[in-house]
Structures are given as C-alpha cells and as structure tokens.
C-alpha cells in the first residue's frame, strides 16, 4: 500500500472528504425545470388572448404540429441535458431531442408555403418578426440561468455538448411560449427570424455554458 506516487493526492482528497447529498435522478431534475417552464406558461397564458390563439391554430393544422414539435423538443432536450450533465453519460443522449426537432422544423417549414397555400393569412412583417426574436432571446436568458442553476451540482465531462443541448431546450421552450403572443401565422420571414433566434440562444449557451461547466469551482460538490 505504501510508496504509491498518488498517495499524497489520495491522502489530501480523503482529508478534504465531506458527506455529500446524492444528486436526484436526472429525469426528476428535468421535471423540476419543465415545471418552472410550465409555471411561466401559466403566467403568460393569463396575459394572452387564448381565444385568438385557439382560432389561429385550429385554422392551420401545421401550427399544431409545430407547437407539438417545439414542446417535444423542449421536453426531450431537457431530459437529455440533465442526463448529459452526469460525468458517465453516454453521448447518445444528445440525439434524444431529434424526433421533436424534426417535427418542429418540418411543420414550421410548411409555414413557408403559407403565402401561396392561404393567401388571405396574416403573415408577419419584418418589424413583427423582430419582436419574436426579442421575445425568444429575452425569455431564454432567465430560462438559461435557471437551467445552469439546476445543473450547478452536476459534473459534465462533455461541457460543450451539454451546454448546446441545454441551449436547445431553452430555445425550444421560449419558442413554444412565444405562441401565446404570436398574432400572425408563421411564414418564411417569421421562420427565418425564429431560426436565427434559436441559433443565437444555442450558440450563446454553448459559449457561456461550456465555460461555466469547465470551471472547476462550478462542479465542487455542496
């Protein structure tokens, strides 16, 4: 037992040992974050015109699919990010949000044809589309902060990938919540702005989250 070159380090680590609270299962922690998003959704619903929302989405079935797609992306990406935050998580978890994301992109892509399919539909002007971008980015900031706060005790060994999937969860949740205040049907301009907003959120999360997760103090157990 004696004479190992690692003995001083092992001794130091053992001397530093304190009892730790085990991390709850990732699915449970994901549920916590999604619960907070649902609470925000309820609060936003109180200020939105639900009747107009219902009329809008019942007139365009692709919007239903787009909302289901973005919601599924948010839920699946949230589960994936809490799984990926564990040091032994397989990278394959990063593929989990793919089905939701495909549905979201495909259904939203159908909106590009709206101007031809439904000429009477009110499509977003550039100024209105800019409001969408501001909404998604602004709502993503507190949602990202909450996500990082909930991941503070995790120890991801794939910080870039974890932060990217976290960004996708946040952006998808913000895009879903945008539907409460989206008084026009999705069209090409609107879709492009949504893509830019989602990309901005994912890139910002990757850049910021990657650094936060990689910092040793961030992963120090409580």
């Amino acid at each position, binding site marked *: *037992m004696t004479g*190992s*070159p*690692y*003995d001083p*380090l*092992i*001794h*130091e*680590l*053992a*001397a*530093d*040992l*304190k*009892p*730790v*609270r*085990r*991390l709850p*299962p990732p699915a449970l922690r994901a549920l916590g974050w999604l619960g907070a998003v649902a609470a925000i959704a309820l609060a936003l619903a109180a200020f939105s015109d639900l009747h107009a929302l219902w009329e809008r989405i019942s007139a365009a079935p692709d919007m239903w699919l787009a909302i289901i797609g973005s919601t599924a992306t948010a839920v699946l990406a949230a589960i994936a990010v809490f799984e990926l935050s*564990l*040091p*032994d998580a*397989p990278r394959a978890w990063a593929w989990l949000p793919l089905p939701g994301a495909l549905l979201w992109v495909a259904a939203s892509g159908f909106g590009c044809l709206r101007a031809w399919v439904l000429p009477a539909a009110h499509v977003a002007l550039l100024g209105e589309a800019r409001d969408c971008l501001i909404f998604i980015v602004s709502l993503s900031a507190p949602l990202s902060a909450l996500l990082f706060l909930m991941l503070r*005790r*995790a*120890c991801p*060994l*794939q910080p870039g990938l974890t932060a990217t999937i976290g960004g996708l969860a946040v952006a998808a949740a913000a895009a879903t919540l945008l539907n409460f205040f989206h008084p026009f049907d999705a069209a090409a301009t609107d879709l492009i702005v949504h893509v830019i907003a989602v990309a901005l959120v994912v890139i910002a999360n990757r850049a910021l989250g990657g650094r936060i997760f*990689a*910092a*040793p*103090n961030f*992963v*120090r*157990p*409580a």
Partner: protein
Amino acid sequence: MTARTLQTNVIPADKDGALLPPAFRGMAVLEACGNPQCRRLVSMAEPQTRSADDLRRSAQMAAAQGGDRAAYEALLRDCAPLIKAIAGRQGVPADRIDDVVQDVLLTIHRARHTYDPARSFMAWLRVIAERRAIDLLRRVRRHGAREFHAPLAMESYADEGADPARGLAQADASGRVNEALAKLPPRQREAVEMLVLNERSLTEAAAFTRSSKVALKVNLHRALKALRGKLDRPG
C-alpha cells in the same frame, strides 16, 4: 460524521467472493461490510450481474458519500491501477499516464455525489477515465500541433551569439534557480511548478492544486518577486 471503517478494505483477494459460487458472492460482500448503508446497497444489488469487486467498490463509494474517509482512501488506492490500465488501453503515452490518474482521482472527488450506488461503479469509473484520457490526448495533440520537429534546421542554424563559456554560466544559473525555487514556501513553489515549469493552464492548475485561480495568480506573483529578489542578489 465520524469515520467508519469498512472491513472490505482488508479482505484478502481470495476471500472477497471472487472464488465463491455466483449465488454466494453477494452474501460474501454483505458479511464483509459492517456499514448499514453498505448492507442496504448489497441487498439491492444483483450478484449475478455485478462482480463482488464491483459491489465492494460501490459500497465503499456509498460510504464515502456519507463521509467515511477510510473507505474513500481505500477505494481511491484501489482505483489507481485500474485507471492506469484504462489510460494505457486508450493509447495515453507512458509518461503521461500519471497525469490521467491524477485527473481522474480529482474528478472522482468532485463528482462523487453524482454516483448512484445502484449502478456499477466500474462502469462509472471506466467512462470517467476514458473521457479524461481522451481530454489529455487532445491536449497533447494540440500542444504537438503548435510545435514542429526539424532537427536539420536546428543543426544548420548558426547561433551568432554562441559562447563556449555560456554553457557553464547557464548551468550555474539553473543551479541557482533550483536552489531559490526550493526555498520558496510550498504554495508559491507549487504555483511556479504548475504554471511555469509544467505549462498548465490556470484552470488545470487550480483543479490540481485545489485552490482558486486568484490564489494561484497571487502565489505566482509573489514567487516570481521572491525569485527575482534572490537571483538579483550577487553570489
């Protein structure tokens, strides 16, 4: 929390259940482990799918999560050769394997609360060790990409400032630097070794020394100031 010693630490290799029939392996560990937390764990475990060694390490980690230093120390000592083997399999050069072992030991320490004793400890350790080994290989590759090997260019380069007496002067200076370095306080010496001699980044050095980046910077600054003072003095 008071330290509780796991009896599993002192079980000889031939009595840890490895030679027992599969049906008795879990029982062997249960009997050997005096910790109630450990007993709960073993009763949940499936002896058919997890080896006795794995169950023992899981029990030690569960005890470490509760603050048992003796079990933790025994577990880390037990892990070191396993990490070395995993790093070797990943293609880590022999002279960098120690770096991977230290990285993994630090990661185990920081991530110990993420381990779920209902799952295999060896699988947990293997993934962490493989990832740390890959991180190190990437670092080595990045470092290698910045340098180039051109022995002929070096040989054909005429050093205009070549001075036969310089070698002696350098040897003398390096001896004085080593002597001055040895006289520094341990934390300052550690900062110089990590950041200057080993060329580690602030983040890596902070993880290794378990101190903050600010403290490292302060220690390095003080060390350089002290070294400058000592080396400027004649004799």
